[in-house]
């Protein structure tokens, strides 16, 4: 429905005609692309829901715009030994109904999180196994069964609700009855599929929002969002589509904010089966008896056959960054030594020759066509690049609903696939654990390891890191683990997505790596 050419046409004609926005009105309207499904902050662990909850609720630990932990309702936290954390709570914080926030509310929240009925994806893992004691109303002592260095980051997604709502069902939150938090805005209404409305919490403990009231409108169609910000109906939109960017840039009334996100788009390769279902002999068309993707030289060849610069320039107008590792440079646990493989078809051909495929082979690659921006185009571009290197490639793209269920356990239907990974934790243990660790349900490792990559050395480094409390020592282990996995081509990194916001030029927004669009951080210029 949103063919780029048409939008381009529409927007091109629209230049300069948009009306100005009145900042002094103190009412903000935001257009978001994600579909917010519930107000209950513990019901569905889903980006859009977690984003909207940050308007009304606080967490013990907050994540700043670069996903670094900062004090929230907790003023400080420290590990007193390997399995004990002491958390000091902020004093003088009030809920929206005027009552005081204390440790009892945290305890009640931890009780509610695993309780929420019918949750399709809960936050239970974040508070699993915690033994909480409350020596005084502003101190929490948390014992964990094993060393848990990630605890503060886990707690950064658990929104603290008022203790008396410990057994409030999801419907009470949607209706507003239980929407009592400590956050910068008070809830005033939710119309599913349409909008969420709020007003400023004048008693907020942190920096107060500029806006007396705000409306978050759910606009899942990218062209509709663009038209709405151009006409001034909304003042800021997220997930701007690449095709609209050049015209928005030329429009004086519109400003653009961008930031490299923590979302990595990568290729996963079947490295488990001895014969993989979609690799065929070039001459006979029969399936290959031996899975070529198990040979590191083949994986390296495929990586070198990809022109990452070309993809990010041509398909994304520069709004994507070629990737050589699991997260962008400068984030926690990222190795400075991992650079994107240079595009080199000859080197790829030589590697294939060494691996025993002088004439290459045939391959079918799979990916979604409605999940990530331009995902199908990227896959269509990679096909010919592989073919040029000698691996005759056919591209199949599918709707995410089909692709996601077929590509993971128990079917693992594909041989080579394009997938994306956004690191909610803002550090590398998240992709290492979910995508690259050997599949192990008991330990919770490899839950999205669609290629079933397995490397004992990497597993050992990762599990040691996840038991190491000292931040510096842990980061060293994570860097080492990333290097081992990426140099072994456990997956082939392609690029990091860029988050793009468009807003009226009299406003500013501190762009965020986690993609959230938060009204409290939209400010007049």
């Amino acid at each position: 429905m949103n063919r780029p050419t048409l939008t381009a046409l529409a927007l091109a004609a629209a230049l300069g005609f948009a009306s100005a926005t009145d900042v002094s009105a103190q009412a903000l309207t935001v257009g978001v692309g994600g579909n917010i499904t519930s107000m209950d902050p513990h019901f569905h662990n889903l980006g859009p829901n977690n984003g909207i909850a940050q308007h009304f609720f606080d967490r013990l630990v907050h994540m700043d715009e670069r996903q670094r932990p900062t004090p929230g309702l907790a003023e400080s936290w420290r590990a007193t030994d390997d399995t004990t954390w002491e958390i000091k709570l902020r004093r003088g914080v009030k809920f929206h109904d005027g009552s005081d926030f204390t440790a009892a509310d945290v305890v009640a929240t931890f009780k509610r999180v695993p309780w929420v009925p019918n949750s399709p994806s809960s936050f239970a893992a974040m508070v699993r196994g915690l033994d909480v004691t409350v020596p005084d109303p502003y101190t929490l002592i948390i014992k964990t069964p094993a060393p848990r260095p990630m605890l503060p980051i886990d707690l950064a997604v658990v929104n603290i609700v008022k203790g008396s709502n410990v057994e409030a069902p999801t419907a009470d939150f949607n209706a507003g009855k239980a929407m009592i938090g400590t956050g910068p805005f008070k809830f005033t209404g939710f119309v599913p599929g349409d909008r969420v409305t709020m007003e400023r919490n004048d008693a907020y403990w942190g920096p107060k929002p500029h806006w007396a009231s705000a409306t978050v409108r759910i606009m899942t169609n990218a062209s509709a969002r663009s038209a709405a910000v151009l006409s001034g109906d909304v003042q800021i939109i997220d997930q701007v589509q690449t095709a609209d960017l050049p015209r928005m840039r030329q429009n004086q009334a519109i400003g653009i904010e961008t930031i490299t996100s923590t979302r990595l788009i990568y290729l996963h390769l079947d490295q488990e089966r001895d014969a993989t279902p979609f690799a065929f002999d070039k001459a006979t068309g029969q399936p290959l008896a031996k899975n070529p993707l198990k040979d590191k030289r083949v994986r390296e060849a495929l990586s070198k056959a990809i022109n990452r610069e070309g993809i990010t320039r041509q398909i994304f107008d520069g709004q994507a960054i070629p990737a050589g590792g699991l997260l962008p440079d400068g984030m926690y646990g990222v190795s400075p030594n991992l650079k994107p493989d240079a595009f080199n078809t000859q080197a790829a051909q030589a590697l294939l020759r060494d691996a025993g495929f002088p004439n290459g082979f045939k391959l079918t690659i799979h990916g979604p066509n409605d999940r990530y921006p331009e995902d199908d185009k990227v896959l269509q571009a990679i096909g010919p690049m592989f073919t040029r290197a000698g691996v005759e490639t056919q591209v199949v793209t599918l709707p995410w609903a089909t692709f996601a269920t077929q590509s993971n356990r128990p079917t693992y239907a594909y041989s080579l696939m394009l997938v994306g990974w956004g690191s909610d934790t803002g550090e590398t243990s998240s992709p290492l654990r979910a995508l690259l660790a050997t599949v192990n349900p008991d330990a919770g490792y490899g839950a999205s390891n669609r290629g079933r990559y397995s490397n004992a050395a990497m597993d050992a480094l990762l599990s040691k890191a996840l038991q190491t409390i000292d931040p510096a020592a842990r980061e060293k282990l994570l860097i080492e683990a990333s290097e081992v996995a990426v140099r072994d081509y456990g997956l082939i990194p392609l690029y990091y997505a860029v988050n793009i916001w468009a807003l009226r030029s009299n406003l500013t927004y501190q762009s965020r790596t986690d993609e959230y669009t938060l009204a409290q951080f939209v400010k007049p210029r």
Partner: protein
Amino acid sequence: MTVFIIRRLMQSSLVLLLMSLLVFFGVFAIGDPIEIFIAPDADQAERARAIAALGLDKPIWEQYVMFVVNAVAGDLGRSFVFNIPSIELILQRMPATLELAIVAVALSVVLGVPLGMYAGYKPDGTVAKTIMAGSIFGFSLPSFWVGLMLILIFAVELGWLPSTGRGEVGTFLGIHSSIFTLNGLKHLLLPALNLALFNISLVIRLTRAGMRENLPMDYVKFARAKGLSKRRVILIHVLKNILIPIVTVVGLEIGSVIAFAVVTETIFAWPGMGKLIIDSINNLDRPVIVAYLMIVVLMFIVINLVVDILYSILDPRVRLGDMGK
């Protein structure tokens, strides 16, 4: 007539059962919805918990039997994504779609019938030719493109109307609708026009064809010979006769406009049912998909029934009792 209606209802419940069976197993065949809902970084223990919480760990036939038993009691299950009973979820969205559909269909009749009658009455005039040429655009231009153009011209460029969304909702005689406020009407105009465009053209063409067919008929000459005014002949006698095909088509179009307004709803960010069903399909939210399709089937059955009854009123030669045979 009663026998006719009873027979219709029996056929309908069979259709409903078949529909639920097809959709239930069809959605199951696509794949595991948990893979779509679950936070990607959830571990396997959390996945197992979610599967059990949504009852997806039971064999599919057992899930279906449970569904049918509950459905007979009026419970079509809870949405996996919203945790709201799917019927309630659909009914929440229904007013928005209904007002859009009703205004669109009203527009198509109010504009389509007079224009079509004029075009049929003076088929060789410039005005008639312009109307007919315009109607070709009406049903050949893709509605998503027309929608974007409407937004571009009236919202972005001229700034007369809001670009997207539903406006303020007013209350009149206990009915909540954005038709009752000025702000609501402003929001409604563009999407309703976009949705109506195809139907306006359709009605124009049907009406014109009816006029051309009826004007040379004996009853028209007879009425004129009897001394009735031209105005009366056309507005009473001819109109009544050409209305039969129009009622049929408009009736069915109400159904499809309500059920499949998805393109317009998406472009104008209109919080209706069309948007809901597309999102639910993408999420494999089975309870909502099944409930939605059951409601749509029911709606079409009712509309067809009403059309049949209207027929017999407009044309006494039609006897409903015979229609079931």
